[in-house]
């Protein structure tokens, strides 16, 4: 059987694995461990340089409460949810439609359109910055949550459509043809045949887009100005300035911002990885 389980290999390589790997893992995760440990310390520990030792006092709850009390972190967090969730729903449903149209029907422009989507996927977002900002200001969408939702949804639709198109293309086409022969309307084919088959792709894409949009920082700084529409990523940077020397609060705030996507990742790991693999390899 291959790969040979490590338990059945020679002693030196086994010890090498057992010692080297955990050490490498700890070094890899050291920044995360450090930031977590810092977020549970009190100010006294930090100022006395106790960063590797055991905290003299645990301030986990106090620190996190302090973040919420000293800053609009709660509002930033809620903004992130208000931006991310509608974006995911709109982008994924648009992509289901467009991916279906692009993969099932044969028409002359199907191929050029597909290339357009491939190309659109690679356009650097910087090139869009000025016109999109101008457009937002002109239409009154600047510095609003709706403006960000609209933009993110439109921007992500390109990638989502490509993703869905590749997925539907790989489905057994006989199913759809059989339904057509039976005289089922296109509407019902899409709803009762294609959508149920697309469930895994929808889940994978939703998880992926959730993290993409949640973690966006560039558009958050370009499309917002004040505090009211800022998502948590932009908020973390603002808090970073506000809490300057208070590393325990900065740490707590940046961990707070990472909790939803990381939780999402651990809960939906299978879908997340399936999505990345599908999106990258095709």
């Amino acid at each position, binding site marked *: 059987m291959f790969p040979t389980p490590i338990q059945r290999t020679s002693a030196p390589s086994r010890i090498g694995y057992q010692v080297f790997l955990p050490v490498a893992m700890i070094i890899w995760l050291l920044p995360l461990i450090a930031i977590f440990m810092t977020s549970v310390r009190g100010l006294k520990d930090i100022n006395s340089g106790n960063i590797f030792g055991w905290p003299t006092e645990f301030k986990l709850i106090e620190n996190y409460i302090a973040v919420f009390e000293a800053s609009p972190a709660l509002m930033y967090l809620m903004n992130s949810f208000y931006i991310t969730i509608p974006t995911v729903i709109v982008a994924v449903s648009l992509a289901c439609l467009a991916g279906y149209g692009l993969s099932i029907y044969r028409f002359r422009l199907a191929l050029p359109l597909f290339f357009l989507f491939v190309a659109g996927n690679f*356009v650097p977002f910087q090139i869009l910055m000025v016109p999109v900002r101008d*457009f937002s200001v002109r239409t009154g969408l600047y510095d609003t949550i709706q403006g960000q939702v609209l933009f993110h949804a439109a921007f992500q639709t390109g990638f989502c459509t490509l993703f869905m198109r590749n997925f539907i293309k790989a489905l057994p086409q006989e199913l759809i043809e059989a339904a057509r022969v039976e005289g089922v309307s296109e509407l019902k084919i899409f709803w009762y045949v294609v959508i149920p088959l697309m469930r895994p792709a929808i889940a994978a894409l939703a998880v992926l887009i959730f993290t993409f949009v949640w973690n966006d920082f560039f558009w958050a700084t370009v499309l917002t100005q004040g505090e009211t529409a800022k998502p948590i990523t932009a908020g973390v940077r603002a808090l970073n300035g506000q809490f300057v020397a208070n*590393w325990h609060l900065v740490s707590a705030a940046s961990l707070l911002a990472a909790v939803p996507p*990381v939780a999402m990742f651990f809960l939906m790991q299978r879908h997340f990885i399936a999505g990345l693999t599908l999106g990258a390899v095709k």
Partner: protein
Amino acid sequence: MHPALQGLITIIVGVGGCVGYYYLSNQFLDKVLFPARGANAGRNINRANMIRPWLFLAPALFALGLYLAYPVVETLRLSLTDRDAGGAFVGGANYAQMFAEPKFWEAMRNNMLWLIIVPAMSTAFGLLAAQLTDRLAWGNIAKSLIFMPMAISFVGAAVIWKLVYDTRPIEQDQIGILNAILLSLGAEEPRTWLTIPFWNNFFLMAVLIWIQTGFAMVILSAALRGIPEETVEAAIVDGANPFQIFFRIKIPQIAGTIVVVWTTITIVVLKVFDIVFAMTNGQWETQVLANYMYDKLFRANDWGVGSAAAMIIMLLVTPILVWNVYNARKEMK
């Protein structure tokens, strides 16, 4: 209005709009425009089927056009005009001004460094991690942990790494991990890592490598699993050592996936902005193109040069874009 309510309304309008549009437009096509009955029933069905794909595609195309195609053209126009002079056409003046700036060439140099090092290191680490965890009982847990940084935002990661590189005045106790380690190893004084010219670029790159390694690992680990076992078994029977198996048998078989991972990370690197913006903001010779552009647009308020910088990024992405379209085409045939 309460923002939660606004969010809810956005969802309802968005999804309701999609479903409603889809249903009504199909009904209109089948029942009103080309009804499948009467003398021309057969021809009408054909006509309706020619139009139908466009119904599915229209919303996505509209979104893509509004937020993708139009801005690209508009940026090209802005890069050739002077906004202060009322949008007058100035030809290549913005580009000439940009090429004369040392800061631009610094950004170009740094971008090239990022472009070579980050994809190479991420792919190499990812491959190593994929190979090492492949044979472990707790390999999946190890993979999840290595992958975790991928779920964290670039800004969040930048803040986390700021703690790693943090420096305090010499008379105080250090809280930055790197300095604490350095001092415990017997060094005399702490270093201000992010201000050491040239090398600070590598400290910033470490953040992106840290994030992207997980991505490379996941994709490459799936590819490693896909290698036919017979090829490896045959090599073992022929007496190949583990290194030969890895480099001569496995690597050639996943070369295609390595290229995909490499280019995907390259694209990410070309657009890198958050990390530099949040950690050094391009000071101490760490400027990169994306941050240079942001600087020009929002601090110097020079729209022409900023747009010109954006066009340079676009130009750098274009070979990868063309190559991908070309590949997609080859796949079709």
